[in-house]
């Protein structure tokens, strides 16, 4: 365990801890997959994982290479068509927590995973919504996990793929969705919540070694910070052991090797 802890590992561990007490989690591609499986082995043993691909109650015998990995199917509790999955599980409100990634996120938790630049003529064409748009609207809680930088934490989105808060909490409640925008954002610098009065993103806790200046430098607007500001407890040796030895021995997701963390 002499290997130094990477910012991505802190991000994953911090996100996993937030799943304590949650029941049903909707798992998308990439980092959330690792986060949910770490939580299941630590703070949330009873967590039921619903995979976008149609698997419920997966018992993977290896780290899934994608959310459609055959190891998620063999030995699972149920495999269902994608209509049933999105309609009966997600749209019907059975999902307690849904995870979203983001290429851009604004202060209200609105998310862009579609394009950088103009939609008709983008400078960068991103993957698009996938299930993100309906997860944002139908999951009872939405957690965002994203690496923080000025280009991702922006004042204005180039495109709104997944709705967050409107800035008017009263309006948000009236929307009648199961949730009302993301309640948590975890980055490689800190943990963020949203102010109930203004609906604005607020720094709650800094990761070990990160400073308020790092956060401000990596945010495209004046980030609010809670007082007193908490510090994220460092990953425990046990959390790191599970993450490094059981879940991601090759370091695909933990940033110890080049990999992809996009939705």
């Amino acid at each position: 365990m002499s290997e130094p802890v990477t910012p991505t590992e802190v991000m994953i561990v911090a996100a996993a801890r937030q799943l304590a007490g949650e029941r049903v989690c909707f798992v998308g591609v990439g980092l959330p997959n690792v986060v949910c499986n770490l939580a299941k082995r630590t703070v949330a043993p009873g967590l039921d994982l619903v995979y976008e691909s149609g698997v419920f109650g997966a018992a993977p015998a290896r780290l899934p290479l994608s959310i459609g990995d055959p190891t998620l199917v063999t030995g699972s509790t149920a495999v269902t068509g994608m209509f049933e999955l999105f309609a009966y599980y997600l749209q019907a409100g059975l999902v307690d927590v849904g995870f979203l990634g983001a290429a851009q996120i604004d202060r209200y938790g609105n998310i862009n995973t579609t394009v950088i630049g103009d939609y008709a003529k983008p400078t960068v064409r991103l993957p698009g919504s996938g299930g993100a748009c309906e997860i944002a609207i139908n999951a009872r809680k939405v957690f965002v996990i994203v690496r923080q930088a000025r280009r991702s934490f922006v004042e204005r989105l180039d495109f709104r793929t997944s709705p967050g808060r409107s800035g008017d909490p009263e309006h948000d409640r009236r929307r009648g969705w199961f949730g009302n925008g993301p309640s948590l954002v975890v980055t490689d610098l800190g943990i963020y919540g949203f102010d109930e009065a203004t609906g604005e993103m607020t720094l709650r806790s800094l990761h070990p070694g990160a400073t308020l200046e790092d956060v401000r430098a990596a945010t495209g607007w004046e980030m609010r910070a809670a007082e007193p500001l908490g510090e994220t407890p460092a990953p425990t040796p046990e959390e790191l052991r599970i993450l490094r030895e059981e879940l991601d021995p090759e370091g695909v997701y933990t940033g110890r090797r080049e990999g992809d963390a996009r939705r």
Partner: protein
Amino acid sequence: MPGKLTTMREAVAELVRDGDTVAIEGFTHLISFAAGHEIIRQRRRDLTLCRMTPDVIYDQMVGAGVARKLVFSWLGNPGVGSLHAVRRRVERADPEPLELEEYSHFGMVCRYLAGAANLPFFPLRSYYETDLPRANPLIRPLRSPYGEETVYVVPPLRPDVAIVAVQRATEAGDAQIWGLLGCQREAAFAARRVIVVCEEVVGEDVVRSDPNRTAIPGLIVDAVVHEPFGCHPSYAQGYYDRDNRFYLEWERVSRDPEALERWLEGWVHGLSSHREYLEKLGEERLRSLRPAERWSGRVHYGDYGGAAAGAFPAEGGGG
């Protein structure tokens, strides 16, 4: 997930309340008569009973006075005749009126689906130029936003309780069905509370050996009741046949209110459980309903644990 295994008496006592909207589904196949009888035995009242095909079980429940209203699409004793207890109440308010909310088969299916999917309405191509929308104002026309076309829509059906019979389930309620699927899955997902009634309680390993067979996840199940022959005189594919003799006899029983009363006394109120009902039917009659053996093949899911590669499945369908 904690075990939810309980008795029918407990399950009904806890989960079925006076005034509830209750769906005991199953299209000919897997109709939980055991649940219907327990609801009669516990003398529930003012229930709204939903079923595509109110069958002998609803005739019994209506005759026993548990129901205020039926939501349905085909009212009869399939292949035999009428549901006379229902007809007496509808045609002559004898002994009291019975409210009807009527759809077509596809309309009922779509209502369950909309309930399961949390949709405010569901579109279908039916009801054109008929009197059904007049008879039931909840059946409404809706213009397509993509052109001239108009379809009809039905509202979601969200029962307070769905009681679904299945062949096998775990103690956690993960349930598998084969043969006719009816609307078991849609009704279960649409309902606020779910009782799974199974012919067999099996270990998780059985369910996990064939996850594509799972129709209902324990996640949405409140109680699991182990009730062998729990669908008699309906049937469970691979377990027992429909007892057609009973359906034919019912025609005579339900024509006569006193005969119906006597039947309820002798076969429901006079007994304490479905176990006693089966004892009264007799092992001989039950044995006569068992089918000869005919098993499905197996399919290969494969072990993707990164273990050494195994043999390539020669015949996916081989036993």
